[in-house]
């Protein structure tokens, strides 16, 4: 009677736990793709198999310890081998493992089948941001951390999506198979969105494939999952899944904006325009290393404010931004930034924080230089 009560309590506990786990932050999310659902159900199946094994093994152990204790006059058995028992305890784990491997392999096969995609997106990891390129659509942009610096330094209260918010999310259509081609410019990164069950390494010099077909519109957040340097925790991934119609509109707007930007290259820019644009670019791209006030973090990240070499040698300044400096953390920005952005950020760096050179760099000159 008492024993039955214990089992019933345990049963209720586990049933309650199963339901509770699904909704809690302690467990992996069910996610919003067919694959993520499969991964979740695999995870739960294997979890419960482990629970059952644990209960049986530890139950048998504790029962034996108690039932055959020394004070009750138990005598140890002294036999050397027992082939039948040995065969059972070898065969049983083998069968359990194979039993888990079969459904797991079936899911892995689906995860790796990136063929017949409706849309290809190139995902490039950079220290410390993600760059997205919609292949064949002429749309590409950089996705930077949008959490204000004051929240990070503790000067203001942390927002709801602290360190999980970006200026430009990756926008994808729902119900379409999107192939992700992942690579990196500098070190190994990993593109991870739990709700999509995608965690794929982005390795310099390699292109890894993965794919998603998102079932529900929404915003899904993730992070870089491969330690990649100073701001590893400051390059989140945000995916915004929208209906196809909304996606088409967004893509068209993006293309129009890119076309307008391309036109901007040819005209003459004023100092004020370049400074305004440059501050924007500097804040999202450069400030994580060289700091918002240009003071840098020497010796790894030199100060730009009052930097004599920068002030004296405009050519070298330009070359550093466009081509990077090999052997240092300074990357090349010739592909990340467009001519307008490069001209603006150079003008800004040469005229901000007391750097008063008065020199203006025109986008057209940068475009000429890049096309050479």
């Amino acid at each position: 009677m008492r024993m039955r009560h214990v089992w019933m309590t345990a049963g209720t506990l586990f049933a309650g736990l199963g339901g509770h786990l699904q909704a809690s932050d302690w467990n992996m999310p069910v996610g919003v793709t067919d694959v993520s659902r499969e991964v979740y159900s695999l995870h739960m199946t294997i979890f419960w198999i482990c629970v059952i094994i644990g209960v049986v093994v530890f139950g048998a152990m504790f029962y034996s310890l108690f039932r055959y204790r020394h004070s009750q006059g138990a005598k140890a058995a002294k036999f050397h081998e027992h082939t039948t028992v040995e065969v059972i305890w070898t065969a049983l784990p083998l069968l359990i493992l194979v039993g888990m491997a079969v459904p797991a392999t079936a899911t892995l096969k689906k995860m790796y089948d990136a063929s017949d995609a409706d849309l290809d997106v190139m995902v490039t990891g950079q220290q410390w941001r993600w760059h997205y390129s919609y292949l064949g659509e002429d749309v590409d942009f950089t996705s930077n951390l949008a959490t204000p610096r004051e929240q990070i330094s503790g000067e203001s209260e942390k927002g709801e999506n602290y360190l999980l918010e970006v200026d430009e999310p990756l926008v994808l259509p729902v119900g379409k198979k999107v192939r992700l081609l992942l690579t990196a410019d500098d070190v190994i990164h990993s593109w991870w969105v739990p709700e999509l069950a995608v965690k794929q390494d982005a390795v310099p010099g390699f292109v890894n494939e993965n794919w998603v077909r998102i079932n529900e519109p929404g915003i899904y957040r993730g992070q870089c999952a491969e330690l990649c340097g100073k701001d590893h925790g400051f390059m989140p991934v945000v995916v915004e899944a929208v209906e196809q119609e909304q996606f088409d509109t967004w893509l068209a707007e993006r293309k129009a904006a890119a076309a307008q930007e391309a036109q901007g290259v040819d005209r003459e820019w004023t100092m004020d325009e370049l400074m305004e644009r440059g501050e924007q670019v500097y804040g999202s791209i450069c400030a994580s290393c060289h700091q918002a006030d240009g003071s840098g973090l020497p010796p790894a990240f030199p100060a730009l404010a009052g930097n004599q070499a920068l002030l004296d040698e405009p050519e070298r300044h330009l070359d550093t931004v466009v081509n990077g400096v090999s052997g240092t953390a300074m990357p090349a920005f010739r592909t990340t930034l467009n001519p307008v952005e490069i001209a603006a950020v150079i003008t800004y760096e040469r005229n901000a924080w007391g750097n008063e050179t008065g020199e203006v760099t025109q986008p057209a000159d940068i475009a000429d230089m890049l096309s050479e």
Partner: protein
Amino acid sequence: MWKTIKSVLAAFFGVQRESRRQEDFTTGKASSFIVVGILMGVLFVVILIVIATLAAG
């Protein structure tokens, strides 16, 4: 020969009867166990490759 194969299979599995072990060590030849062991190791790998190919196809 059949006995050698059975002993190698038992070694793969990790369980052997003590009487069979004694027998192998008194009447068996080391070289035959080594040769059969290597061949069956190769066969095992081939079987795994076939299973993997079937599963992927």
